[in-house]
């Protein structure tokens, strides 16, 4: 297998997919690297993109089973939100609004069922219905339904979160 071509073609999209899925870029890059190493050991695959995403999904699943330490970012965020604090960011360039939107997006995505979330994230990376079906072991005909459900729920959940008062605003009001 042409490692250089494979890496050049798919690394960016695979890393972005994994970053969106995991919320941890370091972990995403690590999984992506490991995925390409696995690919190097393959003689050939029929559908490269679907194969890469499937292997990456499997790596995450296996890793999650044996080691939950990778969820540290969520734990830390949860730990932060447990403290009843008004945060004063010191770091220059911190955009509170952007951070708030990111947190809402993460929460909305995490609220989706696993299959819906993966289908949506893979579709956003340009995988076609056949590739998504192959990676998730779905029938091609059900991918549209899966995606429509995922998109609707994501947007509805996100909009619901937007209507909630922000923590900092609540403190300011009080």
């Amino acid at each position, binding site marked *: 297998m042409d490692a250089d071509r494979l890496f050049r073609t798919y690394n960016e999209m695979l890393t972005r997919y994994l970053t969106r899925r995991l919320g941890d870029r370091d972990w995403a890059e690590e999984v992506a690297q490991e995925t390409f*190493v696995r690919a190097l050991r393959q003689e050939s695959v029929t559908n490269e993109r679907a194969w890469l995403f499937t292997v990456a999904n499997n790596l995450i699943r296996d890793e999650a089973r044996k080691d939950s330490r990778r969820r540290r970012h969520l734990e830390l965020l949860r730990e932060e939100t447990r403290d009843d604090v008004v945060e004063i960011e010191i770091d220059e360039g911190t955009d509170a609004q952007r951070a708030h939107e990111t947190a809402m997006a993460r929460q909305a995505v995490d609220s989706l069922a696993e299959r819906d979330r993966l289908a949506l994230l893979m579709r956003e990376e340009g995988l076609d219905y056949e590739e998504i079906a192959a990676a998730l072991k779905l029938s091609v005909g059900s991918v549209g339904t899966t995606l429509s459900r995922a998109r609707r729920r994501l947007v509805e959940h996100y909009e619901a979160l937007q209507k909630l008062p922000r923590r900092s605003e609540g403190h300011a009001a009080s």
Partner: protein
Amino acid sequence: MRHLDEGTIHAWLDGALNAQKAGEAEKHAARCTQCAMAVADARGFIAASSRILLALDDVPGGVVPRGAGSALGARRSATSTASGQRVRPWMLKVAASIVVVAATGVLISRSGVLERPMAAVGESKVAPIAAANESVAGAPSVTVAANAPALTADKKTDALLKAKAAESTNVVSYAAQPAAEPVQAPAAAPPARQLAAAPTESARPDTNAGPVANQVATVAPKITQMQSGVADRAAAGGAAKRSTGSLEVGLPPGMRMVSEKTVTAQARVVQKRVYEVSPGIEVIYSIFEPAAARDRAEASAAPANDSGAAEKDESADSDPGVNTIKWSDSTGTDFMLSGRLPLDSLRVIRQRLTTVHRQ
């Protein structure tokens, strides 16, 4: 024709229907108001969901500190930038293999109790960054690499495969892209290939050292940059940060502070520091400014000191994996340490942190 179901509409809009079915859907939507509205809704959901997912590319800062923070971060090439002080996982693995003897020597030579629990919670295949830095700085890395016994043939192959893939693609694409963050010293941020061509004196490759050593020559300057980058970031923190440099110096191998910020909680200023105690394991160390005198008087009912008499163990109720210990010292300063570690390990870390804090 029956109304279009939502899945069909999305498949049509995604271009997943064949020409015949797409034509039928289009014709039906053109004459059916209800389905036309459903199509409009679907377009809205597709666009909105894409916008929402874009926000996920902004990895939270301070949690994954190296190179995080840009909205386009994940769209950048997955490459190190000297300004971002990112170090690739494969670099760490290669560096870890290189310095395993030296790092082991450091751990063995230290009689403190901290190293053991930290080693227990980390992954042995990835050496702590601080240990790698320390060893690279202290010994000519090429010599170590050429004689490194820990690099098995299989690991060599993996490392080289990863290095090859990264070097042949990441580095090139990095060179073609602008740095995502302001570069303080352009000369200090060349792409890895340039570094390989002009290594630092301590990492200059021995022509007889073989391919592994040459890889090291590429990695070692990056690690040195990362080390100096940590100091730069610490210095950039300004007056709000408290003696970051000395704290880093006093930390044990494998432990480093990855972020620090000041918050207020219940009218008290709190310094929150995130330490990586081993690869992938982080703890939050919170230092609460001394409470008001009346608060201290109330607290005096329970003897408080920094030797552990006032220590309180708490397991996070929302996450059973996260443990927390709290304690106070004689000045009324309260401390809290939490992380996904056993309480015993947290106490050991606490002991080390409070020792450093006093220095």
